[in-house]
């Protein structure tokens, strides 16, 4: 299986070339086009209850689609908003993805839902997070461009910009400045990322878009 991220960073999509016997799991409704010989099977996103929990708390679909090819073919997988995509290669390690970021993965990757905690909820990152572990590649998307950083110690990210992080990274909520400047300076709450590991961030945030749109209505 060969996967290329095309049209990045603005309108990234995955071109997946499948060889006979290859399989790929993708978020429901992520398929934009595919060769006629590819079979699609829909299954619960990891068991009925987990799937429902993932839908309610993780912002993911109840169902995922598995695409399988008996002969060679290709499939184009996309995400609903404009932005970049990135690939993670898991070798027995774990990564956390923000709700809605997951796009596709190889079949050996385990998709799970992890409790993210009240701190994460207050900082606008959601009460739950998607946990991907196992072996294989995972593709995830973001709104805007994706940029990464190797954190060692503490780093500050505005709420809504964190997309993915390693389990070695801790998250704390904080105020951008004092009480006054935090709320009138437009920064409000920020996310304090600490520990050691890699974080993936998006250059735009949905809250930012919503606020900007509202101002022009």
């Amino acid at each position, binding site marked *: 299986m060969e996967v290329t991220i095309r049209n990045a960073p603005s309108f990234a999509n995955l071109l997946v070339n499948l060889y006979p016997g290859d399989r790929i799991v993708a978020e429901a409704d992520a398929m934009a086009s595919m060769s006629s010989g590819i079979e699609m099977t829909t299954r619960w996103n990891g068991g009925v209850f987990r799937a429902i929990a993932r839908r309610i708390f993780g912002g993911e679909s109840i169902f995922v689609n598995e695409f399988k090819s008996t002969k060679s073919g290709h499939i184009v997988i996309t995400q609903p908003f404009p932005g970049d995509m990135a690939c993670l290669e898991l*070798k*027995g*390690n774990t990564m*956390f993805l923000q709700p809605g970021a997951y796009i596709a993965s190889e079949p050996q990757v385990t998709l799970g839902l*992890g409790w*993210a*905690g*009240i*701190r994460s909820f*207050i900082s606008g990152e959601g009460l739950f*997070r998607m946990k991907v572990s196992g072996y294989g590649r995972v593709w995830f998307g973001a709104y805007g461009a994706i940029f990464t950083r*190797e954190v060692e110690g503490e780093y500050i990210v505005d709420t809504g910009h964190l997309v993915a*992080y*390693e*389990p*070695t*990274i*801790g*998250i*704390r909520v904080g105020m951008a400045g004092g009480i006054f400047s935090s709320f009138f300076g437009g920064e409000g709450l920020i996310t304090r990322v*600490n*520990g*050691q*590991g*890699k974080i993936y961030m998006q250059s735009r945030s949905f809250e930012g878009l*919503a*606020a900007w749109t*509202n101002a022009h*209505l």
Partner: protein
Amino acid sequence: MHDVSQEFFGGVFNDKIEGGRAAAKISIHPQGLVAETLEEQRFEIPFGECQLDKGGASGRMIFCRNNDRSITLFCEERGFPKALESLSLGAFSGQLRAIQQKQRGHEKTFWFWLTVGSVMTLIAGVIGYYALIATTQAAVAALPISIDENIGSVAIKSVELHARLDAGHVATKLVNDIVKELEPHSAIKGLNFRIMVVDEPTVNAFALPGGQIVVYTGLIKNAKSAEQLAGVIAHEMAHATLRHGLKGVGQSLGIIAAIQLVTGDVGGLLALSTQLAQESILTSYSRKSETEADLEGARMLHEAGIDPKNMADFFQMLEKLEGDIPDLLAWISTHPQHADRIARIENYQKQLPQKPYRLLELPWEEVQNQLAN
């Protein structure tokens, strides 16, 4: 050596690894910690060099770094800290305790600020709510009374008045005469009171902004005297003169506007306002408005020389009737408890200077006979 070691699943950070990190098997040996990656790279930190830290996404992950921080081992398994403590023969007891204390400190700070934040939000909400009400009340007072009249004439169209008695009917004349007695004593002048009497058994009466008053014959029939009827009409006139309709709309709109300002959704405001205006005028006034109207009505009665006790008597009568006539519920459901109202009116009356009250010279018997036929 291997028989005393214990293995855990975790990972390691080091520049020699491709990508800088890898999942690894971590084993605790008598001399120190050893991490072995899947690619069989091996990293070792002797106990003497090991700096512990706790954190990670779960807050439970234990990190172990060597002196120059070139190697970082990490493990999240539950038994790891305990095994580390026992297999290192207590070398980490101090470090582990310090970590635990630090974490507890963080927890405390977090919950402290969460509580402070919640309380402040609540206080700001309450202050904001009352400030908003005060502002809208002041704003409404500044608006010309013609706005009340416009709203009232729009609102009356959505009321079904099939069995409306004509202006020449004795009952309509009676109510008009009562209004004329009270009008000179109303809080604002120049309000054009218009009376509609509807021939329905409902024991109800209501006022619309601008001075339109609807009285159902059921209410006239159940009143024991013209003075009792005057009590109810004074109450309804007070709603109009105190501009409760407009205040209600203003308040609801103000609250919605404030919510939208906070949540950022401004688009829905216009769509909601029209619907809300009609609803809040026609459904009910708030209990606070009802109490205000009771007292203002009592004042008007007193000024007009009619005993305000008649209003209280009417409520007392309603209370007795309540079980018998289900139609009564229409008026009662939107009005405060009778006992409270009666007590409030009586208290208020005590504060008023004593004066001789009169009886209204109106054809009460004739009206009752006409309505009975």
